[in-house]
Structure formats: structure tokens, C-alpha cells
């Protein structure tokens, strides 16, 4: 029964969001199959002699097995009211009565409870139900259901309750049906179910293994098949109290449960629904047996979210909870993979992920663990931290990075200095034209103007070289893109003109052929050259204006800039240019030697 209920409800071809939300979010799957039964009013329990009370109690229980249609609020109001008052009376009787729970009553109570509770849950009103955003569909028959649940609880918690008799009626089938109800969308119902199942698990030792197994099944189906089950959080909460009471040493079954069920639960999309309870369970396990730390953290790293930053924040929160209870030896074992992940989180472009990761350093205990292992952790974290300190857009993150770097410096100044030096050396090395093979993704964050730190904004040698390469490959579009977007606006100013455009004109006038991009070929290029010659006679601002008016090709300007700019720089750059022109060989007719005398004197 249970498996059918899950699989049937999932329709992979359902058209989503087609239904309009017209009704109140209330649902019920009750159907009255029998003909209307007129409830006969019975005498009150307190009015009959004690010897007749049991009989009357049973008759009243049977009467309460009748269910009513709550989707029609006006239907059978009299019957509904009578059942409500009867349930209240029964509740009162079970709570306060003495010797009420005689053996014949047990099956009658369970029968009444089954008749009221066990039903096929209505299909979700909203197939796109987002547990966090949408209101849940509430159970329409709640006025009666709540009383039935209350009665059930009182029954189980009664001092007269005898598990030995109870186990005859509360059997595996009953528990299965109860577990199915955990998928109810109504949180009130799930809350009752949670308490009820908790009591059953506590009282019926014979059912414990079965309940655990069935919960496992629900979880596994949830993780690997449906990804949809409303009561995961409640079930986990029950498990939390169960795990808390596990005897030591832990049975291998329980360890299996942790690794095979609880850890995979982390990968489900709607983790946020039950993450608190899940994290609680995991931490309980680790407090019971610290040797489980390594498989748990490795498991978390395995399921670490790649795209969902919200989940990533949750994972980081859980990591902090785990690190709070971790033993130093276990920390030592997992620190390397863990901190490699944390370094990735710190460099996350999503500020919340980075923020959460950096906030780990605010935890005294974690700090002390890092302190002990600083020689391993600092080299892992340092490159990410140092890089981000230079380029992150979010000021909160930058401030946090400062904090972390400062704590590192306080932890081990020497290592900190060594790491700074080696990082810089490494970067210098990668700046070498021979070394850099990566594709240039232009709008990299390093090119974005760093807010409030303007003195760092000069194009680096590497950037210039990359432009040079693009020019060489004639990938004009790649260069044009960012300029059109205004990213390099700062560069294209008067100085740019003097240093870049003008030398190119001079070079042309001297009869040097420059291999312009194909767009500027033939007549167009000679026209442009003529225009440029004319430009030379004008004042600087005039020239700029004219250049803008004529929409001189930025490609041309840029192409020249790359070469003249290189020449203006140190000799190193010149040698680079030599290598570029060598590489391009005879195809390119660009010449860069001996141009110094042509540089503008202004």
C-alpha cells in the first residue's frame, strides 16, 4: 500500500502550473460511500453506572467511526457536532477515568482511530508546491481529526495503558499506515503523528526495528525516487531522540543508517525543509562515536552542492556544527579535503557562501583547531584569501578576509610571510607569456575597477600581453567587446590618443605598412589614413572630437596602442614584442624596431 501511494502520485507528464488556485488551500479525500447514517444520541458516560460504562464507551467509539464530508461546510452539521462532542467526551473519559482501558476497549479504540486517520491523502493541490514559499493545504476535517489524534495520544500516554495488550492491536500494518500519513501536507497533523510515533517507538520494543526499517525505506525512496515527502523533518526529529539513546558501541546497522541514509539525504533539492533535524541527527551520531567523523565529512564533501548556493550555506552551517564537537584527532584526519572545499567556498562568487565560510573563523574552538594545524591549513587557504582580498566586490567579504588574514598572521607570522612571498612569486611566474596558456575571459573580476582602491587600477603586464596576443590572432571582436561595453573607458582618453593613435599615424606617414584588420582594407583604409593626417594638424581635443565623430575604428587605435604602448614600456616588453612579431613571421608586416624617434614629443 505504502509504495503505491508514493509512486502513483507522481505524474511525470503532469502539466505544471496549469491549475488556477481558486479554492482555499483545504483538501480532504473523504468520500462517504455508505448512505447517511443518522447518529443516535447516546447517554453521557458520567450518567451511567460504572458497570455499563465500558459498554457505552465502546458504543460511542463505534459511533465515532462515522466520517463526515468537510468539503461541504454545510453538510450534516448536526452529525458533525454530535461526533465532535462525543469525541470530546471520550477524550475526557480516557484522560480522567480510572480503569477505563480494559482489554476489550483496545481494539475498539484502534478501530476508531484507524477509521478516522487512515485515508488516502489527497493529491497536492499545487503540483509546484514549494514548501518554503507556499501555504500548505490544510486538512478540512481537522476539527474531528485533532480530537482523534489527541485521544490517541492520551490513550498511549495513559498510566493504564499496557503495551502487552496494545501490541496485539498496534501491529506492523498499523504502523505502516501511520507512517504513510507523514506525507500529509498539514503540519498540524504531522506534529501529532511525530509525537504519536515517538510514543509507539518508545513503548513497543518489538516494533522498533520494523519502524526504523520502514523509515529507512521512506527516506531511500525519497532520496532516490520521488524527492517528495512532507514528513522527512518529523521523522528525523524522532530519529534524533532515538539516536540520542543509542547504546555504545553503536551497532553496525546504525552506522550503516548514518552513511547510507542520512548522508545521502543531503543531496535532495529541498534540503532546507529538514536540514535542521538532519544536522541534529548527524551531530548526535558524531557525539556518540567520534570515529564516524571522517566518513561523515567525506560524505558531505561528496554531496557538496555545485550550483545551489543556498544549500551550500546550509552545508557550511552543518560543518560548523560538526566542527564544534569534533575531536582534534578526527580534525587532523579530514582537515585537508575539508579546507580545500572551504577555500573553494571562500572564493565563491556568491557572497553569502563566502561570508558563511569566512565566519567559521569566528568560532573559538575551530580557531584553536586551526591553530594547532596551521602549517597544513594556512597553505591551503592562503591563495584563495589573498586573491579575493584584491578583487572581491562585496565590502563585507573584504572585511572578513582581512580578519582571516590577520588571524593567520597572528597564528604564524613566518609562514604567513613565506606564503605571501611564494604566492607573489607564483603569480609572477604565471605572468610569463610562455607560461600562460589559459583562455582570456575578458570581463574577469580582476579587470573590474576595484572600488575605493583606485591606486591598484593599472592594466597589468599580463593584461597587456593578452591584448597583444589577441591582436596577433586578429581576434578583434574579443578586444572590441569590452571596449564597447565601456569597460576600458578610462583608457580611451586624450592620453590614449597621444600615445596610441598618433604614433600609428606617424608610422603610416613614414610609409610603414601596418597589417590592419580586414574591415579597414582598400579605399576605406586610405581614407582613414588621410583623415588621420588631417587630424594631426588639429589641437588635441579637436582631434579627439573628430576621431569620435568619424568613428575611427577602435580596433585600429587599439592595435597601435598595443605596439606603441609596448615600446613605451621597459625593454622587457620590447623583447616580448620581438617575440610576437617573430611568431607572426612574414604574414604580419608589423615592425616594431627603431620606432623610438617617431614617438610624439609632447
Amino acid at each position, binding site marked *: 500500500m505504502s509504495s503505491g501511494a508514493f509512486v502513483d502520485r507522481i505524474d511525470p507528464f503532469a502539466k505544471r502550473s496549469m491549475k488556477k488556485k481558486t479554492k482555499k488551500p483545504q483538501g480532504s479525500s473523504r468520500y462517504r460511500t455508505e448512505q447517511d447514517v443518522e447518529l443516535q444520541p447516546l447517554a453521557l458516560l458520567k450518567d451511567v453506572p460504572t458497570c455499563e460504562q465500558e459498554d457505552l464507551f465502546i458504543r460511542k467509539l463505534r459511533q465515532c467511526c462515522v466520517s463526515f464530508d468537510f468539503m461541504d461546510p454545510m453538510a450534516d452539521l448536526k452529525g458533525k457536532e454530535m461526533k465532535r462532542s462525543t469525541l470530546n467526551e471520550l477524550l475526557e473519559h480516557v484522560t480522567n477515568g480510572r480503569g477505563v482501558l480494559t482489554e476489550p476497549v483496545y481494539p475498539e479504540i484502534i478501530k476508531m482511530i484507524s477509521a478516522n486517520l487512515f485515508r488516502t491523502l489527497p493529491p497536492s493541490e499545487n503540483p509546484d508546491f514549494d514548501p518554503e514559499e507556499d501555504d500548505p493545504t490544510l486538512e478540512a476535517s481537522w476539527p474531528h481529526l485533532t480530537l482523534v489524534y489527541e485521544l490517541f495520544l492520551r490513550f498511549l500516554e495513559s498510566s493504564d495503558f499496557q503495551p502487552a495488550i496494545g501490541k496485539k492491536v498496534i501491529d506492523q500494518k498499523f504502523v505502516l499506515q501511520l507512517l504513510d500519513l507523514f506525507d500529509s501536507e498539514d503540519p498540524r497533523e504531522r506534529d501529532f503523528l511525530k*509525537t504519536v510515533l515517538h510514543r509507539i517507538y518508545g513503548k513497543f520494543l518489538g516494533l522498533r526495528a520494523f519502524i526504523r526499517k520502514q523509515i529507512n525505506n521512506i527516506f531511500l525512496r525519497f532520496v532516490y525516487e520521488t524527492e517528495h515527502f512532507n514528513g522527512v523533518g518529523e521523522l528525523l526529529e524522532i530519529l534524533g531522540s532515538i539516536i540520542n539513546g543509542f547504546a555504545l558501541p553503536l551497532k553496525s546497522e546504525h552506522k550503516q543508517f548514518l552513511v547510507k541514509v542520512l548522508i545521502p539525504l543531503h543531496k535532495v533539492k529541498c534540503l532546507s525543509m529538514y*536540514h535542521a533535524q538532519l544536522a541534529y541527527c548527524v551531530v548526535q551520531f558524531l557525539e556518540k562515536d567520534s570515529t564516524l567523523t571522517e566518513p561523515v565529512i567525506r560524505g558531505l564533501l561528496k554531496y557538496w552542492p555545485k550550483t545551489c548556493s543556498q544549500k551550500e550555506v546550509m552545508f557550511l552551517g552543518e560543518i560548523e556544527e560538526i566542527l564544534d564537537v569534533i575531536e582534534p584527532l578526527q580534525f587532523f584526519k579530514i582537515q585537508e579535503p575539508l579546507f580545500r572545499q572551504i577555500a573553494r567556498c571562500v572564493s565563491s562568487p556568491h557572497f553569502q557562501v563566502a561570508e558563511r565560510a569566512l565566519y567559521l573563523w569566528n568560532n573559538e574552538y575551530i580557531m584553536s583547531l586551526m591553530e594547532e594545524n596551521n602549517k597544513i591549513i594556512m597553505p591551503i587557504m592562503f591563495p584563495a584569501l589573498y586573491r579575493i582580498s584584491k578583487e572581491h566586490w562585496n565590502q563585507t567579504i573584504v572585511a572578513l578576509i582581512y580578519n582571516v588574514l590577520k588571524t593567520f*598572521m*597572528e597564528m604564524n607570522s613566518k609562514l604567513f610571510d613565506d606564503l*605571501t612571498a611564494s604566492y607573489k612569486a607564483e603569480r609572477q611566474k604565471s605572468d610569463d607569456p610562455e607560461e600562460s596558456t589559459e583562455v582570456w575571459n575578458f570581463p574577469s573580476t580582476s579587470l573590474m575597477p576595484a572600488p575605493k582602491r583606485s591606486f591598484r587600477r593599472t592594466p597589468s603586464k599580463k593584461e597587456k600581453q593578452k591584448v597583444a596576443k589577441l591582436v596577433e590572432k586578429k581576434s578583434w571582436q574579443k578586444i572590441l567587446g569590452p571596449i564597447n561595453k565601456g569597460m576600458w573607458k578610462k583608457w580611451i582618453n586624450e592620453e590614449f590618443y597621444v600615445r596610441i593613435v598618433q604614433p600609428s599615424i606617424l608610422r603610416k606617414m613614414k610609409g610603414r605598412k601596418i597589417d590592419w584588420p580586414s574591415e579597414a582594407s582598400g579605399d576605406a583604409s586610405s581614407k582613414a589614413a588621410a583623415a588621420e593626417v588631417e587630424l594631426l594638424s588639429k589641437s588635441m581635443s579637436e582631434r579627439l572630437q573628430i576621431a569620435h565623430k568619424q568613428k575611427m575604428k577602435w580596433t585600429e587605435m587599439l592595435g597601435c596602442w598595443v605596439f606603441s604602448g609596448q615600446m613605451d614600456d621597459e625593454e622587457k616588453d620590447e623583447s616580448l614584442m620581438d617575440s610576437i612579431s617573430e611568431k607572426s613571421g612574414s604574414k604580419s608586416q608589423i615592425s616594431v624596431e627603431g620606432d623610438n624617434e617617431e614617438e610624439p614629443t609632447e
Partner: protein
Amino acid sequence: MILTIAFRYFGDKSMNDSHSNLMLRRTGAQLVSFGSVNCQNKCLEITDPHHSSHQSPGRDRTESLGDGRLKEMLNDFVNNMKQPGLRHSERPVGSAVVSSEGPFLGCDWQRWQQQQHCGDSGNKWCADVTGMDLAQLAPRPEAPDALLTHIVLEQKYQPHLKLPTHSQKCSGEVTVGIRNGSAHVLRCLKVWYDMPSEVLFVALNVMDRFLTRMKVKPKHMACISVSSFQLACKVVCDCEPLDVAVISQCKCSVGDLTRMQAIIATKLGLQVEGGGTPTTALTFLRLFHAACLNHHDRLYQRLVGEGDDMWQRLEIVMCDAVCANFRACEVALVVLCCQMDTAVSQLQPAASSSDVLSLVAFVSHLQVACNISEASFSACHEAVLTVVAQYNGETQMPHRQRLVWRVSQRTLRYLRPTDKLSRPTLPTIMEHGQGTVCARPRMSSTSSQESLASV
């Protein structure tokens, strides 16, 4: 003290060579002072016991001078020094009398050495050194003018910190610990902003001098140190990191920093533009480094190389209040010696003894030129070694900055997943037996929350 290098070097392999040992001792003891130049609180006092006639007329023993006058006098002084026939007989440490004739600085040092060696037969230590040609060992110092200038200027920029140690509960005053903590904050800022080393040295110098002059409450220390940093940025590289008030967490506004900068500049007579950078230990170490590279390229290159470590070491040393009180040239020389000291024992293949000797001799010349007495050298050496040992020990710093950890509200809400389980969870069910026990109180570190609340 310089000789520790050489002693370590010779310790194992040539102890039997009493000759070179003797030689070494003599070289180290050969502390020639050329008169003393004292410059305190902008008062220049120049004394030359033997050649008062060389002093310019009207120059009193103590005379208050401005910067311009100072330079002028300095030139006079250097010129005097260059005159032949100048005799120097002051001996700082009890060693054999060394009298010398001939040009001193700015001329051919080697020639001077030779003259000394050959001409002064009454000199005992020269008589001892037979078979060893001193001329080969004696180096040729370069740019003594620059060195001299800085030696004189050094006094002007010398801090004299008299801070209580942190062990004394001296409320209301900046302690050594607080000062050192601030120094390390500045060092972190220097790394953070990728500033040249000089910024740090100037900032520390400005801060220390301000602390020397003023009594400062601990609550103002962050503001003072960061303002010093800003001033140093302006002086050294004409730039100013704008977000430093936020980044450094100095708990004061940009306006506060600007005001503090003005106060510091006034108190110290600091000119941001065109005032020149203060003479610091870095200035000296650079001079020494250049001089050594010039004269002992092979061995010194092998020992120190680019000296990356050495600059780093100097930064660390200057972050210490005790070391900051020594003369800048002392600290620089000690750091240089420490660097060579460590390097010489690790050198593979080992350096030749004559190279080491000649380098040691050169360094001791530097010591002489800087007028560093053996006593103060060894005191400084001890202080520096303490700091460096602590640094090399890779231990935790004693003074930690109180950092503020801020996160966005969004993140704050999701800090701890289990915080959501605020209501009491279900009672524990024991695995064996029916009994239920109360839920164990959760052990959780609340440090994140707590520290935030305290902000």
C-alpha cells in the same frame, strides 16, 4: 659581536689557526671613531677632540638647528672628515690604541688601510698580523656621504619609547604590548595594500616618535597607528588607501583619521610633501646591502642574495618596541649580521676563510663608520635575536587584534541549522529498555553569536 659569524665559521674547522683568530679579534676590536656626532631634539652637537680648529666659526657645542642648517653643517662635517691628516683616537671599547692618518671616508679606504698598516709601526695589532695581508681584507666602502648624512639624520628620527610593560597594570597608558599589537596591525595593512616596505618603516617610525613625545591613552592607539600608516603612505608613495578606516577596524571615522594625521604631522614637524622620508633602519640596511654587494659580490651574494628574508626579518624586528629604541643603523647592522650568521653555517660548499674574513672586516668597518659601540651592538643583537627566535619559532603572537566579524542579516539567520529546533525536541528513547530520559542539553559553541552580540 660581528665576529660571531666568523667564529661560527671558523669554530669547527680552523680553530687551530690561531693566526686568523687573532686577526679576527683585532679586526673586530678596531673600532675607530671619528669624533662623535650627537643630534638630539634637533640640536646638533659636533665634537672633535683633536680638531676643534676645523669647526666652522660660530658653531657652538650645542646649537639648535633647523633642517637646512643641519644639512649645511653636515656638508662641512663631511668635508672636514675628508681632509687628510685627520686623526681619530677615540676608542669605544677597551682595545689597542688605533691611530690613523690619512683620508678617512669618501676616499680610498683601502689605501687608508694600507697607510695605516705600513705607516704606524707602533700599532700593536698590526704587528701581530704577520703573514696576512690586511690590504687584501680591507674593503672599499662606497657612498659614505649618504651613510654619513643618514647617521646624522638618524638622531632626528630616533624614537625613545618609555612605555610600561604589559605586566604592570598601568591603566590609562599605552603599554609595550599595545604598541607591538598596533605595529603588527600596520604590518598586516602593509601586506593587505601591497605597500612597499618603506611605508611600514616610516609608519612605525612616525608612530613611535609620536608615542615618545605624547602620553597616549590605549583607546586612541588604533587611530594613531592607522593615521601614521596613512601619513607614511602619503610620504612614501603619494597615495592613500581610502578604505583603511573600515579595513583596519580602528573604530574611528575617516574624519578622525584626518584630524589625527594633522595632529601627528604638527607634533612631529612632518611635512607630507617634499619633506623627505625619515631615516629608518630600512634606509641603513639598504645602504649596507648595497655596499656589501659592491665589495663582496661573490660571498655576500651567496650569503644574502636578494635578501628577501632579510627585509622581512627587519620588518619583524622593527615591530618590536624594544628593538625600535635602538639606533636605526644598529638594528640594520645587527639584522645584516644575523642574516649572514645564519647563512654562513649553511653555505654549501663552505666559503673560503679569507672571503669570510674580508667580509667580516668590511662589516666591522661599517660598524665603525656608524659609530656603534660594541656594547650597544651586543645589546641590540640580543634584542633582535629574541624577536627573531620568536618569529622563527612560528608561535602564536602574544597580542591579538580584537576583530569584529560582521555578516549580512541573510547569512546571520542561517548561521546554525540546529538553532531552528528551538522548542524542546522529543525526549530521548534509550535503545535498551523502555525508560525515557530527558533530552541532554545541546552542547554548542555560541561564539559566533556571542561575539556578534558584543559588537
